[in-house]
């Protein structure tokens, strides 16, 4: 009897909390980390779904994730290395390009997945409550699988090119975390904008292309003159890719300009979260 009672109480207790629903407060919204944590399972399952979908719906499946950076690497090596003779910091161009592509393919695919996350899950946003941040976060999480696959791909390519990673390869996790944060920051900005404005979808591919051109994926940062370096490093991708090459290929150290990249990444991330949380208030009404 008492046992049964305790069971009933255990069922009822979590429901006894009052949830208060008020108009959104003006000013800077709260992060809501605790709530995000209670919904972590949903985030995980959404990410799993995205991964499963990639491998199920595409003709090439997993091969696509491997082929995409490989083909890009070969094209870059051919066009920029062989034909344009761009310098590659003394490393074979294939390794040089792939090191940059690890960051870039991840960031660009994660950003576009995150940007479309809410619009694609329109059904969820209009029908159930969940912390909206989860949608873009899950999209970025799903894309990290690609990041790790490209990193694994690096091993044979470096071996073929005869590149031995230097000691600072131990800093690799830092650059990976940086890339994830960058994808999250830009993803949040674009995900919210995509809900609010319907032309963002069309601007997105162009935006990513422009971003590629100002990031040192195909070229080396050493081409940028010192006077312009700090402006150039306002693009966090520049600092991250330089750091990645430094860690993997013993490229030139990113130097003091790295602080500029880290600073602007931080700013982008904080503003991204704030803007997303502020825009979130009207998602269900506008999507």
């Amino acid at each position, binding site marked *: 009897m008492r046992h049964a009672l305790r069971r009933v109480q255990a069922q009822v207790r979590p429901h006894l909390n009052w949830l208060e629903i008020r108009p959104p407060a003006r000013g800077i919204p709260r992060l809501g980390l605790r709530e995000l944590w209670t919904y972590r399972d949903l985030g995980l399952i959404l990410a799993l*779904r995205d991964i499963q979908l990639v491998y199920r719906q595409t003709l090439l499946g997993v091969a696509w994730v491997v082929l995409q950076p490989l083909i890009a690497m070969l094209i870059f090596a051919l066009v920029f290395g062989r034909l344009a003779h761009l310098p590659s910091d003394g490393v074979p161009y294939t390794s040089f390009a792939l090191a940059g592509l690890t960051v870039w393919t991840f960031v660009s695919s994660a950003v576009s997945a995150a940007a479309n996350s809410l619009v694609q899950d329109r059904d969820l946003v209009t029908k159930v409550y969940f912390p909206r941040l989860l949608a873009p976060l899950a999209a970025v999480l799903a894309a990290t699988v690609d990041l790790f696959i490209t990193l694994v791909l690096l091993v044979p390519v470096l071996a073929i090119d005869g590149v031995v990673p230097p000691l600072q390869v131990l800093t690799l996790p830092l650059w990976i975390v940086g890339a994830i944060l960058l994808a999250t920051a830009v993803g949040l900005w674009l995900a919210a904008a995509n809900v609010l404005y319907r032309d963002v979808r069309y601007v997105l591919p162009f935006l990513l292309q422009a971003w590629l051109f100002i990031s040192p994926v195909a070229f080396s940062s050493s081409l940028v003159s010192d006077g312009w370096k700090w402006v150039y490093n306002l693009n966090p991708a520049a600092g991250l890719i330089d750091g990645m090459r430094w860690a993997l290929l013993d490229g030139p150290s990113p130097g003091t300009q790295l602080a500029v990249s880290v600073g602007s990444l931080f700013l982008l991330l904080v503003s991204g979260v704030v803007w997303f949380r502020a825009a979130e208030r009207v998602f269900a009404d506008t999507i």
Partner: protein
Amino acid sequence: MAEPAIQVENLGKRFRLGVGTATYDTLREALARAARPGKDDRRELWALRGVDLEVERGEALGIVGPNGAGKTTLLRILARITYPTEGVARTRGIVGSLLDVGTGFHPELTGRENVFLSGAVMGMRRREIRASFDEIVEFSGVERFLDTPVKRYSSGMRLRLAFAVAAHLEPPIVVVDEVLAVGDSAFREKCMGKMAEMGRRDRTVLFVSHDLGAITRLCTRAVWLEGGNIQAEGPPRSIVSSYLERATPGRLLDIEFNAEPDAAVAVQRVSVRDGATGQVLTVPERGQPFTIEMAFEVRETIPDMRVALILVDELGVVVIDDDVRDRPFGGALSGAQGAYVVSATIPPLLRAGRYMVRTWIGNDLGDSLNRDLLTFRVGPRPDDPQEYMERTRAVQPEIEWKVRREPML
């Protein structure tokens, strides 16, 4: 044990309507607006204003009101899908929906994967889903197809699986918005059963339906929402009957509806006409045959379309529910895109009183449209004694009596 489960104070929700039909902005427009401040010419609409409401635990509250009264907005605020513009709402525990089943289902994923996805979307932890997984599967009856992508399921199978997930969630406050529900009547019957069962287990239920009979049957209390305000609240029976009475007497029963450019099917005009002359009536008299005429437009083809007219009286009793199924209309009512006019002649059997006309358009696969059209009053005959109005009877057809006298044995 009066313990509140929901408290709503002065709740209001304002929508901004976009210029023209677009409700979705472009970045270009937003930038143009920012460049010229003060030129914001978007209209505003209060979908809900000044709503006060308290619901106790274990209560089943029915919400009635015409389309656009703010019923769905109220439920969406309580479910935290959208924010209010003013006021406060408090709910004791989370608000879950019983009819938004299959939310989060993805056609490319298998049944098994979708159970997890849908469960998580509706607030279950993975551990909980795993614990009740076998039960869910058994309840759904689709064991054999668990590893088949849901896109290959029949719509019935998909619905059964989705409902099995929803039935295993037991949020303390349940919202049943039947107005938005899709699915066949058997499925809806199942939901109603589940709902009644939840009420018995001390769950608080909010029920929105056009089926006024279901509201009087299943709810312990009702509110009438109209124009974003609560018009009245009280016992379901009296609310339903005063809701039906709102039709102003003396009004011509000929209504044109808003264009609804986005709807797949839209009713354009409904009228009640004299059966013989075709003239629009204001108050048909008891015993007078009349015709309900409805013009509608089908914008997305509905294969094997069926149209039904439903008449509900002030007690919530469905007096007539008639469907064109199995009648030889052929191509005239094919369901292809285009404009249609249907008219149904109601035989002289209604008693004097208030009625609501509802329509349903759809096919065996589901509903395309399910909405209230108009309310009207059937007046007494001039020579009817007063007691005719006071006695309860479902129908009052012209009964032919015969009398003869027999010699006593």
